[in-house]
């Protein structure tokens, strides 16, 4: 192997190594331009266009959204369709509340026979509809405060 060829290969190797680094940087840069759904602020996702069938089912259930009226998450709106909503400190809950007075799996709200029903999931401090602590799954009327720890939610049409 001639000296020149070896030098060329040597430079080619270093060039290719740096090309790899450069490509890496390009991928990094493209990544930075990605939508920020991985950031903590982007925890939600764009609602899918509701299918006609789903709309029909949704219409039967009274109340279309759960609004947080008190507590750290005040102003959060949870649109309700057909699935249950879990409330608690556990990171996989639908509504994650950072509150020492809430249990990790505190309560769930699910649709049943055209109404939204609240069930306490064995929480320490209880789930309250207005002034009553619920012990069995209870129908949540529209506009009545639902208290979980220091958070108050309200079912709205």
């Amino acid at each position, binding site marked *: *192997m001639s000296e020149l*060829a*070896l*030098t060329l*290969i*040597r*430079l*080619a*190797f*270093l060039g*290719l*190594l*740096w*090309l*790899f*680094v450069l*490509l*890496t940087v390009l*991928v*990094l840069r*493209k*990544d930075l331009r*990605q*939508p*920020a*759904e*991985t*950031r*903590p*602020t*982007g*925890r*939600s*996702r*764009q*609602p*899918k266009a509701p299918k006609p069938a789903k709309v029909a089912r949704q219409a039967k259930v009274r109340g279309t959204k759960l609004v947080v009226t008190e507590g750290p998450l005040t*102003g*959060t*709106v*949870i*649109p*309700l*369709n*057909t*699935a*249950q*909503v*879990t409330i608690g400190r556990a*990171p*996989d*809950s*639908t*509504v994650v509340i950072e509150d020492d007075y809430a249990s990790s799996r505190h309560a769930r709200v699910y649709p049943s026979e055209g109404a939204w029903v609240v069930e306490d999931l064995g929480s320490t401090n209880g789930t309250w509809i207005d002034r009553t602590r619920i012990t069995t799954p209870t129908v949540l009327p529209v506009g009545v405060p639902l208290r979980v720890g220091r958070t108050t939610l309200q079912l709205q049409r």
Partner: protein
Amino acid sequence: MSVGSQQLARRQPSRRGAELMLLGCAWALGVLGTLQVGWATGEGTPSRLWVTVGVVGALALVMHIVVRIKARYADPLLLPVATLLTILGLVMIYRIDVASAQRAERNSAPQPTPDVYAQLTWFAIAVVLFVAVLVLVKDHRRLQRYTYSFGLLGLLLLVLPLAPIIGTTVNGATLWVRIGGFSFQPAEAAKILLTLFFAGYLVVKRDSLALVRSKFLGLGFPQIRDLGPLFIAWVVSLGVLVFERDLGTSLLFFGLFITMLYIATQRRSWLILGSIFFAIGALLAYQFFDHVHNRVIVWLDPWSYADTSGYQIVQSLYGFANGGIMGAGLGQGFPNFVPFANTDFIVAAIGEELGLTGMFALLLLYAVLIERGLRTAVSVRDSFGQLLAAGLSITLALQVFVIVGGVTRLIPLTGLTTPFLSYGGSSLVANWVIVALLLRISDRARRPEIHQIDADDALTQVVRRV
């Protein structure tokens, strides 16, 4: 409607194509490097080149496919960067094998067994474990359940080399376990297990550890009672230092625990306390242990000991000097002048043959790897995942800093392996498991649809801030 949800209209691509392209690039670098070594050393095209290169390519492809299936949205850079580092390591180990063989030929000594095939076998084992982690650990949060089991197992593994019969002392450090003909360094596995333990423990305890009880010099210091874990970590790492004479591992564990404490509690006082404990430990070790004392003396003035304990580091520095800016070229340096050129001093060999240009590229690759890990930590939602990803990245960062710093005489030399590069199975396998765990967490972090409810995707609820 917040800005966040508008951005969400765009879908997150999986970026697996970019990953495959980079993997191909890494593989091509490996082929070119191997050929260059063969040609420059006068060995000609290596006899088993295409088999070896084919195996490496197949292993990389297997990992890519598994990531595609099991962690579709995982970070696209972690896998190719780690693969390139492993490939560079293989090329360098092959290079040093050739050098040792040629030297043996000149001295008409028996031919040494080449290490590169052993390393390749270890790489295959690492890939098996990598796949196993991605397949078995479907959700990293499950790992939190076994916090204390991991902690106990980690500690057990840490003290395993001290056990009679199976524990083995190599070059003064007792960090090997030999069972049958098979030997490994349990500390490498312990490193991952203890990171898992620290993450799980700190998630639960971080509130009390973040409590400020007394103010001093404008910094809040924690309660004496809460110092317990810090103290235990300190004693354990000193114990490793005393009984196993393993400076690197003890440094790694203590550093890891301090940084994780800091990340979990966001209190700078832990860093200060940690540094104080570290200083005390370092002073004690310097005073009472010859091997630590020697390392420091050699670090301060290696040339006075150039023929004895400073031989390695002096040769390594000469290697760097010989390499210069552009390097001597693969196969054209003298990397085997440094004892243990393919383990502790592989960075010196790379510095000599690839030069400053190559070293910078190498360090950038490590930086990218660690940055992607830390970014995963920032973007994942659950605190356990955050701490785990941060801890794993910091394990890698500390290793790179300690060994590269040691080889370049920035800090006293400690025997740690260079992640992915060094010859040594336990370290390679352990670091690949770290990559697998990081990929698992980053898949969770980057996945566009976050499964919040057990019901199927279509029913996933939407939380919108108004």
